[in-house]
């Protein structure tokens, strides 16, 4: 592709496309990322939504989009994208619409539907080489219903269905690896707190065709338990601690776009959120903290800078 138009922070858009007035929680890290993503993708888009927090972006008669939107259900947003994409292609082929009426088809779904009931629809959309972009805002739980654990919940996190002293006993599902294993056109992790990295990746995704995947870690003040103003701070910490590696898969290769040379201890990240408070109070749980740290260390040990 051509050289990025986002060389430095100052190149980021200062007029924003997504309309105000969306009823998302104050400090929503998912909305933060979607704003930045929308700025790059632009208004010639149709968002196909799976049930989740972002379903409430459009509540009749209000929509924050300049372009279009279709709400489907929790499990089948990629199939909705298939129907819209195919129909647009048919209309283009029959010359019922002109090419400038064409839209980019974008799935918008949370981590719960993405890693759970929507996974087979996603996998199959890749099989069919569907030309679409899939955006997953990952707040690591079923946030819209009050943060029950999903298969994207990190180990040891407290959720409203993992309230025991060790938190969630499972491990965060590696969606990046699952998607990449399908060999789609593009997969990338992003975070709203790193808008330049995000903008470049969305720019790359937009320049390609075929199935393209973006997963955005989305700090969630209500679900994770922190003051809304900490959203960006926590997002940055997720990257600095190495908990959220920023990377992309392209042409069969995975590369890291930000490699924290000196990683901040995960403890600094865990301490910012009430969902990990039980690791420190009333008694420090070194075993679990060490386990989390060593998982992160093991991940980065395999990465050459």
């Amino acid at each position, binding site marked *: 592709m051509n050289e990025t138009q986002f060389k430095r922070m100052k190149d980021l858009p200062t007029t924003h496309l997504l309309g105000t007035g969306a009823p998302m929680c104050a400090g929503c890290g998912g909305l933060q990322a979607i704003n930045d993503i929308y700025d790059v993708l632009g208004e010639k888009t149709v968002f196909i939504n799976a049930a989740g927090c972002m379903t409430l972006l459009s509540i009749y008669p209000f929509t924050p989009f300049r372009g279009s939107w279709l709400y489907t259900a929790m499990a089948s947003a990629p199939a909705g994208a298939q129907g819209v994409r195919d129909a647009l292609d048919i209309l283009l082929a029959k010359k019922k619409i002109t090419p400038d009426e064409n839209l980019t088809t974008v799935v918008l779904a949370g981590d719960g539907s993405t890693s759970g009931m929507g996974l087979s629809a996603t996998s199959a959309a890749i099989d069919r080489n569907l030309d679409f972009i899939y955006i997953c805002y990952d707040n690591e739980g079923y946030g819209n219903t009050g943060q029950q654990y999903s298969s994207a919940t990190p180990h040891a996190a407290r959720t409203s269905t993992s309230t025991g002293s060790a938190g969630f006993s499972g491990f965060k599902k590696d969606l990046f690896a699952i998607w990449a294993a399908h060999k789609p056109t593009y997969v990338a992790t992003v975070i*709203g*707190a790193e808008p330049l990295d995000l903008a470049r990746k969305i720019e790359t995704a937009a320049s390609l065709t075929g199935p393209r995947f973006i997963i955005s870690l989305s700090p969630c003040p209500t679900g994770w338990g922190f003051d809304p103003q900490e959203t960006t701070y926590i997002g940055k910490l997720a990257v600095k601690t190495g908990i959220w590696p920023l990377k992309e898969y392209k042409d069969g290769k995975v590369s890291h776009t930000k490699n924290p040379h000196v990683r901040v201890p995960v403890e600094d990240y865990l301490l910012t959120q009430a969902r990990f408070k039980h690791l420190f109070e009333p008694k420090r749980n070194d075993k679990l903290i060490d386990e989390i740290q060593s998982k992160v260390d093991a991940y980065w040990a395999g990465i050459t800078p």
Partner: protein
Amino acid sequence: MKTASRILGSAFFNEGYEVQDAPRYGAERRGAPIFAFVRADNKAIDERGVITHPDLVIVADDSLVTVPAAGVMQGLDEHAVLLINSHVSAETWQQRLNTKAQVLVLPIKDAMQNRAELPYVSAACVGAAARLLGMISQNALVRAIDEELSHLAADKINTNRTRAIEAFELMTTHENCIQQRPSVSALDYQQPEWVELPFEDARISAPTIHASLTSVEVKTGLWRTMRPVIEYDRCNHCWWICSSTCPHNVISVEDNSPVIDYDHCVGCLVCVAQCPPHAIKAISEAEAKQSAVEQAGETT
């Protein structure tokens, strides 16, 4: 407010009343206006859902009172009492609102301005309500707080208790000012204006929005309890971190300067936390409104 409704419900229950309490869930998220209901009676309660004609309305955030969309004034008549948590006096509110309902004020704690007092507003409101109702003893009130807040740390429970008792005491002069409204008469009632729903074809009646950006009509600025204020002399015109990282898209850059859209800023304060030269400060909405009133006074 859900917590407030539960404490009040439990307090009634502890006094031997039949009770219903329920929050009203909407799509709005944390920070958005929320309301909750409590019903109490000596006999089993058959009515359900939204209270259309309340005996007592408690408003924890006075900025909502004058906003029609918040619906605070709905169903308020001469029978009702409106209790507002506010800096402004009851007399001023009574005048401003032009309502037949009796208006009372529970004075705001000063510490509200730094969010520290926010978690205790519920308990204070319930304490005041308990005294106004005259049906709930201080003991029953404290017991209800202990029950409903048992998941909190002991010091937090204590502060809740203290705030509730303070408010309970403050309302002494108005004790027992609320009377239960008679139930709707089947002999003399207002007939519902039913219509035949006209058939409208799908070009009109599909759940489709045929436009863009209609959400700007939703004034999410109402949610705000704290307001970010840009001190322009300190702004170093960076790469517009405030604008780029604002989750709610309310900071635009005009004439090489950031501008906050207060109609839609929900007051998350991410900008305050992120601004490199600390050029954005947070003030409470109450304070912001107060100074706006003062400024208006000076200019007139």
